[in-house]
């Protein structure tokens, strides 16, 4: 089983005719995702390798029954694209775009609170339910169907984690990159809540990083609500304070948001924290088979 994406996913790609959009769309198709439509304003009526392109999301939904959208629209237009998808009743919106202005995301986040749409991202690799559907830019082949759920604020770091899990023989139910921005559509807790409702997810890996207090809140949530074992990892133990480490959200302010404090809280809440990324796979094997 899996959460949010799977065999029922009918994917629409906003910005399908751009270089990135086209490339990753075809990667998703190749993985087996049911890509039903694309949207690029002004290119309605064209197609991308047989996938029909529409002018508006509403048209695309009406014509193809799309229920999930993946967004590759450039930052100045990305907030509008997210709002358009929500307005058209898309259930799951996955925004890959990096560099959306903070005020735009503030408005989008509040606008979505009043809608039925769920947003993943922005500035994220997307979501994959191995063997069923890939909605994002992660490399498909490192994944393997299985029962471990992975949630992460990062991109390639997630691939590293998944790679080690797969190498140890642990497949994944669903892997989600929630994105490295300070304002993201779905946070750790949203994902954990969904995994808690998935009987076939028997273990979880949560990959955090310095900055903010999302990991602390997630840990408290895990203590109260999550029955399966959870492995935690935090990147940025050696990050200097006051510097933004690539991700807009990855910054230690004073003594708050440090890796050490996050790890302490996670341990307190019963998570199995692995501090050595190089041995994360083995560590997980110890926990998930133990």
């Amino acid at each position, binding site marked *: 089983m899996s959460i949010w994406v799977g065999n029922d996913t009918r994917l629409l790609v906003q910005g399908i005719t751009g270089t990135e959009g086209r490339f990753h769309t075809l990667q998703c198709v190749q993985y087996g995702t049911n890509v039903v439509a694309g949207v690029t304003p002004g290119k309605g009526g064209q197609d991308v390798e047989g996938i029909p392109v529409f002018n508006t999301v509403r048209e695309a939904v009406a014509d193809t029954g799309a229920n999930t959208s993946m967004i590759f629209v450039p930052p100045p237009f990305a907030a509008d694209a997210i709002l358009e998808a929500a307005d058209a009743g898309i259930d799951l919106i996955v925004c890959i775009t990096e560099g959306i202005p903070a005020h735009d995301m503030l408005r989008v986040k509040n606008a979505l609170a009043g809608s039925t749409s769920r947003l993943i991202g922005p500035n994220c690799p997307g979501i994959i339910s191995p063997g069923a559907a890939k909605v994002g830019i992660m*490399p498909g082949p490192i994944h393997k169907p299985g029962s471990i759920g992975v949630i992460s604020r990062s991109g390639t770091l997630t691939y590293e984690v998944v790679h080690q899990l797969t190498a140890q023989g642990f497949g994944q139910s669903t892997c989600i990159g929630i994105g490295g921005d300070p304002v993201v559509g779905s946070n750790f807790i949203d994902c954990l809540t969904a995994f808690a409702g998935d009987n076939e997810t028997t273990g979880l890996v949560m990959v955090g990083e310095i900055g903010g207090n999302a990991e602390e809140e997630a840990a408290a949530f895990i203590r109260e609500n999550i029955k399966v074992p959870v492995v935690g990892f935090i990147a940025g133990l050696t990050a*200097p304070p006051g510097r933004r480490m690539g991700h807009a959200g990855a910054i230690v302010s004073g003594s708050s948001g440090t890796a050490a404090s996050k790890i302490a809280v996670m341990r307190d809440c019963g998570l199995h924290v692995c501090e050595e990324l190089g041995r994360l796979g083995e560590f997980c094997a110890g926990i998930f088979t133990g």
Partner: protein
Amino acid sequence: MKLHEFQAKELFAGAGLPVPEGRVADSVQRAVEAAEALGYPAAIKAQVHAGGRGKAGGIRLARDRQEAQASAEAIIGMTLATAQTAGRGHTVHRVLVEQGQQIKDELYLSILPDRATASMMIIASTEGGMNIEEVAATTPERIIRVRVNPLIGLQPFHLRQVAFGLGLQGDQFKTFCGLLQKLYSLVVSRDLLLAEINPLAVTEDDRLVLLDAKVEVDSSALFRHKDLAALHDPSEDDPLEAEAKKYHLNYIRLDGNIGTMVNGAGLAMATMDIIKQAGGEPANFLDVGGGANAEMIENGFRLLLSDPDVRAILINIFGGILRCDVLATGVVEAATKMALKLPVVVRMEGTNAEEGSRILNDSGLELITADGLQDAAEKIATIARQL
């Protein structure tokens, strides 16, 4: 992107907010001229991106020409290292000369997007002129926090909450509300990540004056604010970090001697961590991006090599959509082109990793390939210890 105080004040003045009259000067002579023109007392303030300038001697008051001359001489050209500059010094190229104010009271006011709650946050306090984090720690009851839903926007009741909270009355109440409204509009319309007025002075003649101004603009939003983009002051940047930005690379200089190049910010941080755990010291954080290509690898190399402290290099790439063989080719080309002399450990994983390793091994370069992350970290740490 941070603005200088004088830039922030020009922005505020343009929005109809009351700032002291002042002039920017980039020489002692011009500073003295400015003070003469504005009259005394005059404040002479170092224009660098650093909080806590006052305590560090970057702000001086001059009561006459002699003092203006002495203050300007002391400040212009000085290297300012404050409690908020994290060890790094800022050289002062310019000062802002301002009319001195007769101050009765100092308030604190700031507005910022609060990303955790996805709301706009107004912070105010009667304890102006102090570090607000200190006020929050010692007398939290003197801090007023008002959250505004960005879709609903600033309402009259928000203004009242802040103004009553500060104990304002009569005309000052109204003036303050007008000021807060303008400041809020400015923060939203100009995509500011922070607008901080500390202190917001109440003068002896009961005016409100924005005495200091700290503004941070959202770099991601500069595409719609060409005028603000033009305010960027490259002299405040670390030259290597500025160079990295040109190539869309995320680079941060650190104290060690092991240069790192990684694709993806999270993996880059974790790579620094693992180097340290293995006993090494990273010289930098360098994220070439999740979707790095051969050209970015080359630019990354150039950056690493231009740092004289870098004595060994660890490349850690998780090939995703970008194939490892393509990357390996890029590494080989760049290393050859730049006649690389330093020891380099390469760890590649993901799509076409084996083919990538073969390319590296066959290149004739002295590249050390690693088998997994742990192996890579141990190899580079061992090398670094032997330097």
